[in-house]
């Protein structure tokens, strides 16, 4: 019981994922600044932002809408992200072996933050937030099926095994799944799904649309916004780690392989940032047709290739 609380709150849980996510968020902002020919913020900037929001600013409750739901939504999103993070990182760091079917549990737990954003935005009583919330709903409907197809492809490739630990072990015994044609296709589709789940440009229409009045988070201030930022930092760490686990061969923690493990996560965050900086924001109906038609087509082609053994 105490060990479980330690896993949830300290080691691969809230504290570790929050701090690592903060550093990855700095990496993303510094890289954005360098691509735009400017210097970026200092190293601890995401932590200054988080502590300023938590300790200094006051939290204002909305007049219309429901204050209790408004305040509980960020708490649920931090909880969902941390639970998913614990289940992803425990097999990844080889601490425990997970349980059978935990890949599907991770998939469902990863939808909790997005749902809490929608619930929070609708509870804030602001029409701009409602527009952002409806856009987030449409975005979820489009990328969730594609993400499930990627997971189905990986499970097929691994011989019908549903737990993360055996997927990692299968890749470490043979070669990582990205070495095959179908693995490359699944990786491309998965990177776009992560871009949409993290609400990064070109898919950030729920958040920064309503033209730069910050859509779904418009009424959040102070401590509740600090929790939303914490959720974003944790998700920026655990989603590339999940991708490294299912397609790139997981982490190996002996000798030189520690460097490769860090480079895997940094490489995926680099890819997300470069896509973020070179693309405009697209409209919601373009995003829906992008995921439902094109990305699903590529994922289905990858699954057919897997069935033939490529």
């Amino acid at each position: 019981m105490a060990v479980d609380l330690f896993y949830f709150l300290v080691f691969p849980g809230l504290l570790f994922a929050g701090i690592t996510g903060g550093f990855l968020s700095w990496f993303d902002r510094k890289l954005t600044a360098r691509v735009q020919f400017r210097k970026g913020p200092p190293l601890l900037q995401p932590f200054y932002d988080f502590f300023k929001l938590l300790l200094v600013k006051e939290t204002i409750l909305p007049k219309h809408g429901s204050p209790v739901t408004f305040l509980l939504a960020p708490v649920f999103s931090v909880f969902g992200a941390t639970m998913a993070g614990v289940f992803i990182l425990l097999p990844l760091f080889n601490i425990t072996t997970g349980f059978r079917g935990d890949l599907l549990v991770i998939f469902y737990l990863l939808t909790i933050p997005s749902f809490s954003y929608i619930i929070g935005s609708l509870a804030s009583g602001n029409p701009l937030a409602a527009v952002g919330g409806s856009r987030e709903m449409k975005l979820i409907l489009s990328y969730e099926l594609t993400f499930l197809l990627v997971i189905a492809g990986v499970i097929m490739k691994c011989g019908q095994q549903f737990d993360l630990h055996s997927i990692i072990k299968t890749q470490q015994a043979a070669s990582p799944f990205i070495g095959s044609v179908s693995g490359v296709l699944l990786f491309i589709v998965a990177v776009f799904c992560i871009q949409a789940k993290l609400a990064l440009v070109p898919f950030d229409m729920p958040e920064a649309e309503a033209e730069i009045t910050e859509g779904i988070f418009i009424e959040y201030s102070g401590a509740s916004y600090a929790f939303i930022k914490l959720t974003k930092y944790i998700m920026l760490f655990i989603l590339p780690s999940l991708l490294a686990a299912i397609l790139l061969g997981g982490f190996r923690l002996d000798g030189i392989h520690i460097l490769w493990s860090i480079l895997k996560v940094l490489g995926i965050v680099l890819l997300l940032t470069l896509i973020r900086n070179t693309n405009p924001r697209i409209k919601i109906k373009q995003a829906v047709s992008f995921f439902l038609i094109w990305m699903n087509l590529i994922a289905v082609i990858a699954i057919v290739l897997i069935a033939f053994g490529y």
Partner: protein
Amino acid sequence: MGFKSYCFKKSLWVFHFGGASCNNCDIEILDCLTPRHDLERFGILLVGSIRHADVLLVNGSINTHDKERLIEIYEQAPKPLLVVAIGACGCTGGIFADSITFAGPVDKVIPVDAYIPGCPPKPEAIIAGIVKLVNK
């Protein structure tokens, strides 16, 4: 300086309210965020919602229409909030001070913490003003 005020100074989020101005000061404020005089290296970000803001930048002379909206925006922002009046119009009314619809420079409407005069102030002057505000 305690931990809280250190964190506050290292990460100031800016919201820009344009009063009835000629928009030159708006251009100079946006200039500060471009790569030449990059302000993000001090942690200063432009935010879209007043509920996320720590500094309210007001430029332009305030109209009778703008006055209620400026008071509403000031009350919607979570405290502690710093207010900066930019440009000659923001500080004293500038060339619009004699018109019929003029409702007072910014400090007649909301309390101001720093004044940055100029018509328009150069980005270097705006940065110097923000540094003086932070060190206060």
